[in-house]
């Protein structure tokens, strides 16, 4: 397309700023970073996420609101449980770590890294510096360097940009080895928990492990002293009592490394997009975005999506992409598409099945299968109708 020569004169960051327009960038956090692993093949999502466009606002504005949202009850419960586990110098956590990981009795030091100077709002730089100082001191194995570090602020490079991550977690150090402790409020009943939620927790924890490893490596320490086993703390059964389970996040770490590595390819992706591509959601005085929804829809359509029904539960734009995919076999699910011989459009598949369309060379096999299926279906349904009538 036309943009290739233009692209070279502008940095990727400027390009992304243009795409975002006047609105503030949506900030990355462990969850959004984890989300990058969900549909890495989707260019639309990659561009919007890298540029930090508020996809939920965008989707709602073009009249395809995502059905996400968190219940206040769930948030309250999560906060209450976390506070409970961390209360009194994380007394409940200390007990679990003593039981699960054999933490010796003297190891109880607790450093709260959320506040540094006691001010209401502290800058990320100040907090990051303190987190870094304390964690590195612990990594160096200094005497009395601490055991539990609550709310460390970590940093990670995502697509060439530094992103600060604030884990709701405690990093815990013993004998020069760090563990990430993730506190979640979903229940572990008889040793089992919702695999989807555990999976989400595992990949988020892996983001923190990665960030801590990066920090240590930059300071010349062995990154592997951050364990790949994270400590997941959840309520046990139907009670409020916490229980701890070790979760091996090696696979998640591999996935993240891979996807973060891929994000540098965003330049290649941008190169083929129109230079004036823009999803500006900047509002006017009344709080309404200044650009017309139609313009944003047009912009969206210039970036290819890779829609699958799974997107509905993970991506804010999924309802738009689904509407766009109407009539595509992909909208019926990946296995349905496969069973239809990988034919792209529903009407093509039906046309081939009924023998109304002449198959292209690469459709010949699919056409045979579909014709057979259609013949069988018709044969049985006619017989059944005959029997009923």
């Amino acid at each position: 397309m036309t943009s290739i020569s233009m692209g070279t004169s502008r940095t990727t960051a400027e390009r992304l700023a243009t795409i975002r327009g006047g609105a503030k960038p949506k900030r990355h956090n462990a969850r959004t970073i984890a989300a990058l692993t969900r549909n890495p093949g989707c260019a639309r999502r990659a561009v919007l996420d890298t540029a930090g466009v508020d996809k939920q606002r965008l989707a709602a504005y073009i009249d395809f609101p995502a059905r996400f949202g968190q219940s206040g009850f769930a948030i309250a419960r999560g906060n209450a449980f976390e506070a409970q586990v961390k209360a009194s110098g994380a007394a409940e956590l200390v007990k679990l770590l003593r039981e699960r990981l054999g933490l010796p009795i003297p190891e109880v030091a607790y450093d709260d890294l959320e506040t540094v100077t006691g001010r209401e709002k502290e800058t990320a730089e100040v907090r990051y510096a303190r987190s870094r100082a304390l964690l590195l001191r612990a990594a160096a194995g200094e005497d009395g360097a601490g055991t539990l570090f609550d709310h460390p602020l970590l940093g990670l490079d995502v697509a060439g940009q530094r992103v600060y991550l604030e884990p709701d977690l405690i990093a815990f150090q013993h004998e020069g080895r760090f563990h990430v402790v993730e506190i979640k409020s979903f229940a572990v009943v008889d040793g089992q928990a919702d695999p989807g939620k555990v999976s989400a927790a595992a990949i988020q924890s892996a983001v923190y492990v990665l960030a801590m490893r990066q920090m240590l490596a930059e300071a010349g320490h062995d990154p592997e002293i951050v364990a790949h086993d994270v400590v997941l703390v959840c309520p046990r059964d139907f009670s409020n009592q916490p229980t701890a389970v070790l979760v091996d996040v090696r696979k998640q770490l591999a996935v993240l490394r891979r996807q973060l590595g891929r994000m540098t390819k965003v330049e290649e992706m941008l190169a083929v997009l129109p230079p004036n591509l823009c999803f500006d959601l900047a509002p006017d005085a009344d709080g309404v975005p200044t650009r017309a929804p139609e313009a944003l829809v047009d912009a969206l359509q210039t970036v290819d999506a890779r829609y699958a029904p799974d997107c509905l539960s993970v991506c804010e734009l999924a309802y738009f992409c689904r509407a766009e995919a109407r009539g595509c076999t992909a909208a019926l699910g990946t296995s349905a598409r496969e069973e239809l011989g990988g034919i792209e459009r529903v009407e093509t598949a039906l046309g081939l099945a009924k023998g109304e369309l002449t198959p292209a060379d690469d459709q010949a096999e699919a056409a045979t299968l579909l014709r057979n299926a259609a013949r069988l279906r018709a044969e049985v349904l006619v017989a059944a109708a005959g029997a009923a009538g």
Partner: protein
Amino acid sequence: MEALERRIDALRAEIRRSVVARDTARTKGLRAELRIAEQEWEQAISDLAEEAGDPPPAAAGRSSAGSLLPVREQVHHALTLLSVPAAPKLVAEVHAAFFGAAAAGGLAAGKLTHLRRDEKRSFGTAPYARPYYLCAALTAEHLAPARGLVAVSTWPLERRIVGPLSPRVDFLTAAVRVAERAGTVPAGSSTLARLVWRFASNIPGALDIAGRPDTVDPVTVIRAAEAERVVHADADRAHRAAAAERARRQLDQVDQLFGNTLRTLPGKVTRRGGAVSRGNPTVQEKTA
């Protein structure tokens, strides 16, 4: 009346849509409308009730909520019993266990957060006018107010300063104090037994084999807590004493009680890492 109810329903539905759409401006406007409609409805209901001759709904809870004084006393009682800085939630639980949750309005944990600010203002206008103030615990590192802890102004600075080992030491101290008091209460309430049990279940060797609240033995709890406290006590005491000494030298009266929030103190310069300067600083929203 019915029209009003329909309007409330419609407004709620609209709010739900605009929340999903992240349309904050519109949501704000709708919420304001909803509040007005709800007030009208409340009014209509009480008008109806009065017409029917019902007594007006009791305004319990409101009357006592206006004054914080009794709450202040309650917190003081609980903290004095514990003898260490404590989080509002623990203060409330201790109070409920020993003094009952009788006080009107209760010791809602949220209320305590406001309390500290209130006390500081009061101290600022008339220092030492009250026999005690509910004040902050200070971080040993920066002498800043420690997050989420309440203390009493009459305590020595050493007790109000928290270093890395202090949360544990204070937890064990509190356990001892609570168990001691529980031992003196004849046939303690089940709330009290549960409080002791909660402490005990996080201290090695403090529970018997059954491990049930009704079989917790205060003497065992005290012994176990003391045994662990000894392990941390020296280091903690030294740390606190050093920080207290620094506080006395560097802080004025107000800051000694409520913590230094204005500047980073000399001698404890926060190192600025090179990696901090780039990008947009982000404070991430809470993940539940």
